[in-house]
């Protein structure tokens, strides 16, 4: 491979680590929020549709209250996303200058997608009572679609960074650019996209259901709450087991396209036939300490063969290896949480099918309260696996993160300012969500037992 000649002359950046952490912080704030943009509108529309079908006003109340939460979270999603776009220039100008012509199209299309999302969220959230019920419902459909297309294009960029195609390097310069092929002809795109999309439904479903579970544990329970819990809970509990299956798919893709990332995930130093899988433990000096080894399992999982050869970290020089323990621990966190959530989902589904009701044990509701935050942790841990596992490359095997970073000073100042700002935003967001949740229920429905909800103690 020829060496890359970046578009701007490379510089030495003393604060590369801070720049990476700033990027990571911005993502950690943005991605959980966008899960609600991906999944919540569909749940709101389902509730509204049930209301249209049955004429029961409780559904409309649910949809209407949820739509306000969608609006508030969308506003914060927009600003955190804007920060990410700015950071492409602020932190990684050389990445953007060198490869903007290859991947930029993805963000340009994403822009249109968010445009439409913003427009229809405006119409939907401000159009209750003003548009006819049927048209109001229809005006929500584009939000669901654009939530999907928006993630499609962003993930296309990320999949391209992990598996760059659609250009050639001639004397270090980027030539023969084919942006459509780079973004959408990429084998990693589909597994990443589906995994992220389902993660969006899990995070949203468990978080929303968890909020009502918390209320139920404190005696706040009526028909409204039951409806508002059943919809997100069922979706999340169906998505959780499927996510494990999709996770297996994505891991097999990684085994083929990014063997060093897989080696880091598994802490595999030596290239091995019939490699064993290690659960838990800590990587030092080329081996896993205190882990539980299961012989042949890694070869079996990654390549579906008892004695398949799995590439180890020793095939690349130390400077091209990602931080092993960060990658490995975050991966194990994701898989551990994913497995537990899948079990929780199966438990709910079994109770539902056998006795046609919600589970009654308090432990189930306690678990649900934890499930939302746990799914969010799994989400971030998954992205840490992907992004840290790709290091030191920003474009896998083509451009290093150090080559792409800005030469501007003052990164620590910016980083500190961003931390303070985001802490403020987080505090504000929690405050507004509590406000929205504590508003008295707004529909006096005939024959509904739980109309005025007591404030939580």
């Amino acid at each position, binding site marked *: 491979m020829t060496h890359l000649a970046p578009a701007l002359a490379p510089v030495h950046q003393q604060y590369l680590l801070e720049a990476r952490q700033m990027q990571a912080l911005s993502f950690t704030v943005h991605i959980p929020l966008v899960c609600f943009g991906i999944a919540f509108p569909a749940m709101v529309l389902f509730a509204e549709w049930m209301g249209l079908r049955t004429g029961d006003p409780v559904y409309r109340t649910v949809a209407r209250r949820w739509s306000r939460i969608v609006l508030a979270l969308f506003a914060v999603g927009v600003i955190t996303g804007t920060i990410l776009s700015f950071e492409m220039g602020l932190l990684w100008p050389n990445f953007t200058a060198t490869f903007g012509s290859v991947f*930029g199209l993805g963000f340009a299309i994403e822009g249109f997608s968010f445009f439409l999302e913003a427009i229809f969220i405006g119409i939907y959230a401000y159009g209750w009572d003003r548009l006819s019920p049927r048209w109001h419902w229809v005006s929500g459909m584009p939000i669901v679609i654009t939530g999907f297309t928006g993630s499609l294009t962003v993930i296309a960029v990320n999949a391209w960074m992990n598996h760059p195609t659609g250009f050639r390097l001639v004397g270090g310069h980027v030539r023969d650019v084919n942006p459509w092929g780079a973004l959408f002809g990429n084998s990693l795109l589909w597994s990443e996209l589906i995994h992220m999309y389902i993660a969006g439904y899990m995070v949203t479903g468990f978080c929303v259901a968890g909020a009502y579970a918390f209320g139920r544990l404190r005696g706040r329970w009526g028909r409204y709450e*039951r409806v508002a819990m059943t919809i997100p809970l069922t979706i999340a509990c*169906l*998505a959780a087991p499927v996510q494990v299956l999709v996770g297996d798919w994505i891991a097999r893709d990684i085994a083929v396209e990014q063997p060093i990332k897989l080696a880091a995930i598994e802490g595999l130093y030596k290239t091995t036939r019939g490699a064993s899988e290690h659960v838990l433990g800590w990587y030092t000096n080329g081996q896993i300490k205190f882990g539980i080894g299961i012989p042949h399992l890694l070869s079996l999982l990654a390549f579906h063969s008892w004695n398949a050869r799995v590439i180890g970290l020793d095939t690349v020089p130390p400077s091209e290896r990602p931080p092993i323990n960060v990658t490995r621990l975050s991966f194990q966190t994701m898989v551990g949480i994913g497995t537990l959530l899948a079990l929780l989902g199966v438990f709910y589904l079994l109770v539902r099918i056998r006795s046609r009701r919600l589970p009654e044990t308090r432990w189930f509701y306690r678990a649900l309260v934890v499930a939302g935050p746990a799914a969010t942790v799994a989400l971030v841990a998954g992205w840490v696996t992907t992004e840290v596992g790709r290091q030191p490359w920003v474009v896998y095997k083509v451009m290093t993160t150090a080559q792409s970073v800005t030469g501007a000073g003052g990164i620590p100042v910016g980083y500190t300012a961003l931390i303070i700002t985001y802490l403020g*935003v987080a505090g504000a967001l929690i405050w507004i969500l509590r406000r929205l949740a504590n508003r008295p229920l707004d529909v006096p429905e005939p024959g509904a037992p739980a109309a005025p909800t007591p404030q939580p103690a």
Partner: protein
Amino acid sequence: MLLKALPLVFVLAGLVLYTVLAGADFGAGIWRMLSGPGEQGRRIRDHAHHSMGPVWEANHVWLIFVLTVTWTAYPTFLGSIASTLAVPFFIAALGIILRGASYALRSGASTSREGVLVDGAFAVGSLVTPFALGAMAGGIAAERIPVGNAAGSLWSTWLNPVSITVGVLAVAFSAYLAAVYLSADAARRSEPDIEEAYRRRALAAGAVAGALAIVGLIVVHADAHSLYAGLVHGAGLAVLIVSLLAGTAAMGLVAARRFEPARYVAALAVAAVIAGWAFARWPVLLPDLTVYQAAAPHDTLVAVVVAVVAGGAILFPALGLLFALTLRGHLGTPGVDAMPPAGVAKGVLSQAGRAGPAFQARLAVALLIIGIGFLNAADAPWAHVIGVFSLFGFILVAFAAIVPRALTQEG
């Protein structure tokens, strides 16, 4: 040649729309701070808040549009300006966070003390962001940004006479546009005192913006001579005159209470200023970089043009719908609760014909097994496609089997 310039036309058009639409949103934030005391002050603030509610997010996306098209079509240009102008860029980012967050908060603030706090944060964001973006534009127009990774000074590239003038002008102009827009909106709602309050503000802000524009020309003459030379010759001069005429006409229209045309004429004035820069310096983007040198490879430019044209074909009807609904007063406030209108009391949609529960359950299990087989046991890409669709089918069918029944049975 044309292909290399076309994305720049999109970028400049996006910039005009952002300045006019989002600029008015920033201005509304400024007026919330300058609303004055008492009951009328509160109404002036609330009016600014409610008029912007449904549209600000859509208006904001024009900035994202400008940014993404620039980095796709002129990557070196964007890399150079973003790294050298990191400070104002970051300040603009923080301002946008403040604005967005306080917007989301305003709907939850109920006590007046909370309202004042939120309005204060909103106003700071609304002042800082147009100033920082204007200062960046000034630095670029004055050709102070060299090509390279943070190759120019972090400070003098945007804290120089031209930048500061353009930054302040951007703030004044935002305030002016907002006042015009809010007067028009108050007139539509027949609230004459609010209309008059904003009309006075529009005239004051317009006078300030006009004076600043003239000062700006003098500063450009002294500080950025090549830009000045371009502005007083040929096409540059023509658009400059258009801008002056449009600016004056807009003031006259506001004085005569013709707010709606005043907005379009004011927009023309901004468009002319931005076009003036483009004509004056064409094809220079940065001191050592022309549009032709900065442009991305051919296939990328074609892709950008296709994406923008196709995206625009979907976008503009949708935007038209949003603005039409807003102007006709079809969009209310999400915070106001009302009884459901009579129309929905009995199911509007008829019961869809549905299959029996046992069948749905069996179908779901079958889809799950097929999905595992094709996604997890098989290795071929085509098999994975079948697997993914089966698993999505499983989720949908199982959801349909469980939820509607669960919701209607209990209760």
